[in-house]
């Protein structure tokens, strides 16, 4: 029976010849991950299950990224709990301090997640790794604790919505705009329980950083996972980062899809998601005058080197608008260092940016840029629900890094061609 790439990966890991949407299966997990906010409950679950050892100490990743460098005493206690667990069970992939960055940035960067794998994470943006051609999905802490104990998880095979992007990308339109546009089309539950498979000539030419951006936001349309078939671009990326074995699976040409959506990109503009939903999108030319108090460039969505480079290309030689705070957070120590070497950090500093240590920062209203009552921020993050970045009476708009950089200079939402 012809299968999609997601179905093939799941069948392989369930030890069966084939699966169909709706099947309840139990799959073996290649990598299980949690962060400082989700690990404590996962550890509690693990202890309660009582296996006294993890299923494989090389197949678990624990990353301190949400409320670090330790935000306050309770957060410090949570990190300590995770650290002690990592030491006790000799978890190979434990990251904190100068080795740590945003989980969904550092795991692919370090070659820890690979094509063809099943990756389960206690974080909704675990879907990011689908960009590598893996099945990767977010779950809660109890599920993750159970995976740490057993190495397996039960799943319902999702139907696949295939989105094909064709045509030529206009200037300043990047992966972030494609996914925002798509979420605008589908709505926040348009892909509920489904796989969002991204394909088409535009995707085939898309660099890895933009593929990660797209897969990252599959969850915002309700998706179980986002996925892009591995190709030469994927293999080149992986080859530089891992010498481990992996499999590349591709969907059958006659596989069955729940729905096929065709998007011609030629007329798409950079997108802005307005408060308070990632699906509330409109082209930047229709944004109107939105005065901003803060711009944040970073996060697991757009905190990679290419994103910082894009931002610096706009900000170099320019200054951030008076009264506006620009915060830039590189997604990992490696990215931070490369950005310094490339003159990106200097350009950002000269423009008036605040540079933060690699972490999630203000994305979820934790620290490093929380908003006050009535403030408006534009960010390259993935969510803008009420109170997402701070006070419930604040507003968050979402965009790509180029628009964010231009807006930081303009002091309001705008595009590079307005500079």
């Amino acid at each position, binding site marked *: 029976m012809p299968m999609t790439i997601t179905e093939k990966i799941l069948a392989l890991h369930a030890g069966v010849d084939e699966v169909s949407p709706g099947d309840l299966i139990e799959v073996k997990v290649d990598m299980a991950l949690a962060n400082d906010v989700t690990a404590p*409950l996962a550890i509690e679950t693990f202890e309660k299950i009582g296996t006294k050892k993890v299923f494989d100490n090389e197949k678990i990743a624990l990353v301190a990224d949400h409320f670090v460098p330790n935000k306050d005493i309770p957060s410090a206690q*949570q990190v300590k709990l995770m650290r002690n667990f990592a030491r006790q069970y000799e978890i190979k992939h434990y990251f904190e301090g100068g080795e740590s960055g945003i989980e969904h940035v550092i795991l692919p960067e370090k070659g820890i997640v690979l094509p063809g794998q099943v990756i389960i994470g206690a974080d*909704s943006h675990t879907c990011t790794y689908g960009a590598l051609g893996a099945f990767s999905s977010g779950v809660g*802490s*109890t*599920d993750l604790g*159970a995976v740490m104990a057993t190495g397996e998880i039960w799943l319902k095979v999702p139907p696949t919505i295939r989105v094909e992007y064709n045509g030529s990308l206009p200037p300043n339109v990047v992966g972030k705009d494609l996914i925002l546009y798509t979420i605008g089309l589908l709505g926040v539950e348009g892909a509920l329980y489904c796989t969002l498979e991204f394909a088409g000539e535009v995707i085939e030419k898309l660099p890895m950083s933009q593929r990660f951006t797209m897969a990252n936001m599959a969850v915002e349309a309700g998706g179980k996972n986002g996925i892009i078939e591995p190709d030469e671009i994927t293999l080149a990326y992986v080859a530089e980062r891992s010498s481990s074995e992996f499999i590349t699976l591709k969907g059958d040409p006659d596989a069955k899809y729940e729905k096929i959506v065709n998007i011609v990109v030629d007329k798409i503009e950079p997108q802005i998601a307005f408060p308070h939903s990632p699906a509330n999108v409109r082209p930047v030319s229709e944004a109107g005058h939105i005065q901003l108090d803060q711009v944040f460039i970073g996060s697991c969505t757009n905190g990679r080197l290419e994103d910082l480079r894009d931002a610096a290309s706009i900000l170099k030689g320019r200054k951030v608008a008076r009264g506006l705070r620009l915060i830039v957070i590189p997604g990992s120590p490696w990215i931070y260092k490369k950005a310094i070497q490339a003159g990106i950090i200097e350009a950002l500093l000269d423009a008036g940016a605040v540079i933060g240590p690699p972490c999630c920062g203000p994305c*979820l209203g934790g620290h490093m840029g929380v908003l006050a009552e009535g403030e408006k921020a534009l960010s390259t993050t993935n969510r803008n*629900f*009420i109170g997402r970045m701070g006070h419930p009476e604040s507003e968050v708009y979402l965009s790509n890094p180029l628009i964010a950089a231009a807006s930081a200079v303009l002091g309001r939402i705008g595009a590079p061609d307005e500079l």
Partner: protein
Amino acid sequence: MELQGKVWKFGDNIDTDLIIPARYLNVSDGSELAKHCFIDIRPDFAKDVSSGDILVAGRNFGCGSSREHAPLAIREAGISVIIAKSFARIFYRNAFNIGLPLLESEEAAEGILEGEQVAVNLASGECKNIDSGKIYTARPIPDFMRQLIKAGGLVDYIRRGEKK
């Protein structure tokens, strides 16, 4: 299993940041989290909710983050069951994993109003509006999920050896 309680009504797309804002995620204790449940949209909820109350909501309840703190805060606040038109998938899994049952029913979510008394039978999916007398039947909970609730959540389900 029969549950009865007073209804707290919410709209569509109630996301996890509304259920429990991230600024409270520096703890994982359920009773502590419950104190801040819905604090940004219904500041009165935490202090006025009673054990056994029932939550009724629209589409895509629990969308957003994977934070298990969300269903945990709701459960610890005293809510015994959530009836909604639809649920976001991670929230759905999380709720059942911690023993908080969920029911999906468009009509029930539409017809039941704030403050009404509702009786719910989890096995049959029947929701009876005590005030109006109307009876709605929710989508049956998948067999496996019912077993999770019966066991009290995923941990107990695993420990009982039903999972290998």
